[in-house]
């Protein structure tokens, strides 16, 4: 792709033969106060030998490796192993540790969707999110629009995500504010009898575990 920089031809990004990442211009704007402080702190830590540049790189690489697929594996296990499901609901951190996941200091609290209750997660104060199992939160989760509205009019917000919850099913919003991190355990959909854990994990998306969608068998 070395000489491909000026390609201004029309092309379809869905074309698998043309699979460069979407182009995003470099941010050339002057750094903000917090960026300057962060950079100064990083330089000092490296200069004083507290951390190496490679430590910082490796930590960022580790954060980037967190992905919703871990959460999906946990949900699939809960669907197929009722004893695990009970352990997961009773003590999220201990159940995650069975998957080798360290949840850090936060208390992981798993809330189960049923035919009577639909759960949805928000952090109205900032962007608390179960990063150890879902990775970094999507932009909409951190947006003021979502954070402000989902506590006030959750059913309207869910409809915008394409999820209609019938009135006889309670919508339970969880405002994750301090030391808890919530994960929604969705309902296992009809039509998945006999599926393997791997197949099941394949339909459990990030949004299902935040509670703005429900898994559907493909």
């Amino acid at each position, binding site marked *: 792709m070395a000489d491909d920089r000026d390609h201004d031809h029309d092309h379809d990004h869905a074309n698998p033969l043309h699979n460069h990442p979407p182009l995003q211009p470099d941010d050339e704007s002057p750094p903000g106060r917090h960026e300057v402080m962060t950079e100064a702190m990083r330089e000092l830590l490296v200069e004083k030998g507290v951390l190496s540049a490679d430590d910082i790189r490796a930590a960022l690489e580790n954060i980037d490796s967190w992905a919703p697929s871990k959460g999906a594996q946990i949900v699939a296990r809960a669907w197929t192993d009722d004893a695990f499901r009970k352990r997961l609901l009773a003590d999220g951190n201990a159940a995650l540790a069975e998957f080798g996941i360290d949840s850090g200091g936060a208390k992981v609290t798993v809330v189960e969707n049923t035919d009577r209750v639909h759960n949805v997660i928000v952090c*109205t104060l900032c962007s608390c999110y179960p990063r150890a199992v879902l990775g970094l939160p999507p932009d909409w989760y951190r947006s003021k629009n979502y954070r402000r509205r989902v*506590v*006030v009019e959750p059913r309207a917000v869910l409809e915008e995500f394409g999820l209609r919850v019938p*009135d006889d099913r309670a919508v339970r919003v969880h405002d994750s*504010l*301090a*030391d*808890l991190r919530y994960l929604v355990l969705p309902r296992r959909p009809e039509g998945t009898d006999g599926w393997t854990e791997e197949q099941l994990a394949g339909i459990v998306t990030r949004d299902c575990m935040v509670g703005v969608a429900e898994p559907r068998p493909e």
Partner: protein
Amino acid sequence: MTGSFTPGDRVRVIRAHPPGHRRTPYYIRGKEGVIERICGAFPNPEELAYGFDGRPAKTLYRVRFRQKDVWPDYAGAEIDTVDVDIYEHWLNPA
């Protein structure tokens, strides 16, 4: 006044507006709900935010509120709720 609550107890969130880093959102202050569970004791984040050690640890509760009690003009179903994590020093018996 703070108390030791058990699940099912009715509580009211203190309506106060102290300055500083607070983990109790404005919309829930003054509202009445029910203790859903005791989450355990955690170093007080309102102290941690300023470099103190957050000791003694505070009991954290999950409190369930009826949406109709939180928002008088709530448009959703009667059975809808919002669960909020609240530290003991923000709660009084209702």
